[in-house]
């Protein structure tokens, strides 16, 4: 059984048909990249996996999305339970206006963990996992806003990982970062794939080719092509994909 499975997903915002009949399977502990021009629906699709689009008024979903074989849109599924399993990192670093420690501990606390020793231990692990520990271990109680943009984004990754999700969604996680920070985040993605299945939306095709095992190309709400990254970038079957990755539009 694959980690994530989408079956004939259609998504509407009001009268706008944002996603058109998408079906795909995402294998366990792989990195899958979604590429495509802006407005193609790749972020919308990503945000279906942790039901972040539930917040949008007037949105409607048809079809099924299964994680570990269970439909996450079935009645009785609790979104907070789902989101413990499916973490998310956003386009811009969005730390809470709290201390570094409290940022990472947040997900544990809101899910009912009170054991201080465990939280301390877990925060350290998550920061180490995000390659941030050495930079912040002496200032855990400082405001997270005091960190640089790249550090903030890695903090957000640590924050998501502390909850111990099995899927990590990344919505253009490096688009607001400088090249050095971007490289660090990419390195991190390669490390994290050992623990989680990663779905990453990106604008940057080099990034997709560097970090992902499989790549899906989206265009105008449709998934045009989905294959191993190597195939997509060297020998795509569809002309639209070819045009996009060679930079002829987008």
């Amino acid at each position: 059984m694959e980690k994530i499975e989408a079956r004939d997903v259609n998504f509407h915002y009001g009268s706008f048909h944002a996603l058109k009949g998408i079906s795909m399977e995402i294998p366990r502990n792989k990195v899958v990249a979604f590429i495509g021009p802006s407005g193609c629906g790749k972020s919308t699709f990503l945000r279906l996996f942790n039901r972040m689009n539930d917040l949008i008024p007037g949105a409607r979903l048809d079809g099924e999305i299964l994680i570990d074989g269970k439909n996450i849109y079935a009645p009785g599924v609790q979104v907070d339970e789902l989101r413990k399993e499916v973490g998310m990192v956003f386009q811009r670093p969005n730390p809470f206006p709290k201390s570094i420690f409290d940022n990472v501990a947040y997900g544990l606390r809101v899910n009912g963990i009170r054991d201080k020793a465990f939280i301390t231990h877990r925060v350290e692990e998550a920061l180490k996992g995000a390659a941030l520990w050495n930079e912040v271990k002496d200032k855990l109680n400082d405001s997270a806003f005091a960190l640089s943009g790249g550090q903030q984004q890695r903090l957000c990754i640590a924050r998501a990982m502390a909850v111990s999700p099995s899927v990590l969604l990344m919505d253009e996680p490096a688009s607001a970062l400088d090249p050095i920070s971007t490289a660090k985040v990419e390195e991190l993605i390669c490390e994290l794939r050992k623990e989680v299945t990663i779905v990453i939306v990106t604008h940057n095709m080099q990034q997709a080719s560097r970090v992902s095992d499989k790549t899906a190309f989206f265009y105008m709400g449709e998934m045009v092509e989905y294959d191993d990254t190597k195939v997509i970038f060297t020998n795509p079957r569809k002309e639209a994909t070819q045009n996009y990755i060679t930079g002829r539009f987008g």
Partner: protein
Amino acid sequence: MKRFLEKAVRWLLTASGFVTSIVILLIIGFLFTEGAGLFREPVIEEGYVLALNSENPVRELNAAEIKAVFDEDVTNWKELGGADMPISTFRLEDADEHFSEEQLGAQYENAGALISGLVAANPGMVAFVPESMIPEDSGLNFIKDSSISPGEVFGGSEWFPTATPAPLFGMLPLLLGTLWVSLFAILFALPFGISIAVYMSEVASPRIRNFLKPVIELLNGIPSVVYGFFGLIVIVPMLQRVFGLPVGESGLAGSLVLAIMALPTIVTVAEDAMRNCPRTLREASLALGATKWQTIYKVVIPSSMSGIASGVVLGIGRAVGETMAVLMVTGNAAVMPHSILEPLRTIPATIAAELGEAPAGGAHYQSLFLLGVILFFITFLINLCVEFISARNKAKYN
């Protein structure tokens, strides 16, 4: 011609730009000049003296002591640092108890000499008489007249501006009354204000929000006399019944009315602050498995704290300065407040109630302006607080 017009308009607009600053300066100027005049006023009513027997060693009395003497609360000179002898008081109105009309003369032309004689004959007597009446050679002593001191005014606990011979301008009861009423008002308004703000900004559907918004605006628009009238007709009798009070007009009635009046300010400012909390922060919290409510109290409220604080402080400002509603329902007893269930009196209510009767330029009139100065500075400080909070907040997010 066109250039000239541009310049003239520019000049005119610049001048208008500074109008509010000029008004503030004028307010400070006028209120201060009148208010500060109080400290140049004599303790004893102008043109009058307190005459003593020449054997009496007491030379100085402050306003509170003078009032105690003439109210017969103090009956022996030794309590005032003098010799051990009983005090007897004499006012001009008492003249006919001591002398017949013929003795005094039709125009009171003999009164001065007679009163001087009376005081000279009674070692414990103090007489409150017009200065012009006492003959030069009476041989009497007079209480040294000093100006009203700031200590008596700001530290005094008795507000008795119409007392004779020496009015009392202790502003403490009014200050405390104002603070009590405002404090309780905010205590009532706070839970409601924050809840409604959270509800409107985070929970309610757009339809409900579009219904609540004008409700809050209307609450803000109702004139304060109407609130006062409603309080007088509905809240005051209700409190009287519920708490079994002798009078329903009380600090609590004022607080309740003020709470309703301060609410719109708190709600509007706090709601605004919460709506300004970035969406990405909410999403980050929800994506970690937090519920909406956890997100609200762990992220949204802390990060909009300064806005909420501004709303509360502005609400306090509104409560402190509110006049008519408070005047109508608090009972206006100028005493040190002991309980919120008793009548008390605030600074604005005092000004509104007494200015009409205070003779222009007199000590009473000036004391009311001084109250105005105090009120102005309280609200000025409150506004500076709000500015400071929001400036710091802007710095944080940029």
